[in-house]
């Protein structure tokens, strides 16, 4: 059970806290990744409702699962 012992004391029930301030300076790694983002996929997704976006993602997951099953791969 030691493995699952909590490390820090959890907040008291009902306690309220604010979001911590963080730096929003451009990160060079993020900026580099941004150049490779496929914006056509994003634009297509933004035409959908939130519900449709989730259903589309689930359909993709099912497709991946089916490929894994058919090729004998495990997650």
């Amino acid at each position, binding site marked *: 059970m030691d493995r*699952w012992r909590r490390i820090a004391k959890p*907040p008291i029930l009902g306690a309220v806290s604010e979001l911590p301030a963080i730096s929003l300076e451009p990160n060079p790694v993020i900026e580099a990744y941004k150049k490779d983002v496929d914006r056509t996929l994003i634009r297509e997704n933004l035409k959908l409702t939130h519900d449709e976006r989730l259903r589309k993602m689930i359909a993709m997951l099912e497709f991946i699962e089916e490929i894994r099953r058919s090729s004998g791969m495990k997650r």
Partner: protein
Amino acid sequence: MTDFARLLRALVEGGVEFIIIGGVAATAHGSAHVTVDLDLIYRRTADNVARLSAALAPLQPYLRGAPPGLPFVFDVETIKRGLNFTLVTAAGDLDVMGEATGGGTYDALLPRTETRAVFGLDVRFVDLATLIHLKRAAGRPKDLERIAELEAIEDERRAMAAADDD
């Protein structure tokens, strides 16, 4: 595979106060990535902790990755003594957090959420700007590519809004 609709239905019908963060929130905002688990922030009040425990009980939550047979019960006492739990349930993988990495509790995040209808249920998602904030605050290398995509979504939304104004 995680049955997101079943998990959300159990939580909503159980009256649990929660906010969706993580990959599912990213998908809802337009991300093209797939995600295999549901991450949520629950409100740490006595009533809500009781509702969370009761809502998930039929789904037999257990610690993900833990050896079988541990005397783990996801009850009110367990939730009170802990904070964030990575669970496996009969409906798939579920991370329930009292506080997001980066410091967001339910009450801190609540003004930064939007309620959307998914699977016939009204659920709260953290808004896009706050999702980016949380991922940046977490500072995990694996999130950098995701943050790039989320910021690109913000750009695209702004461009669409500007086009609508013209």
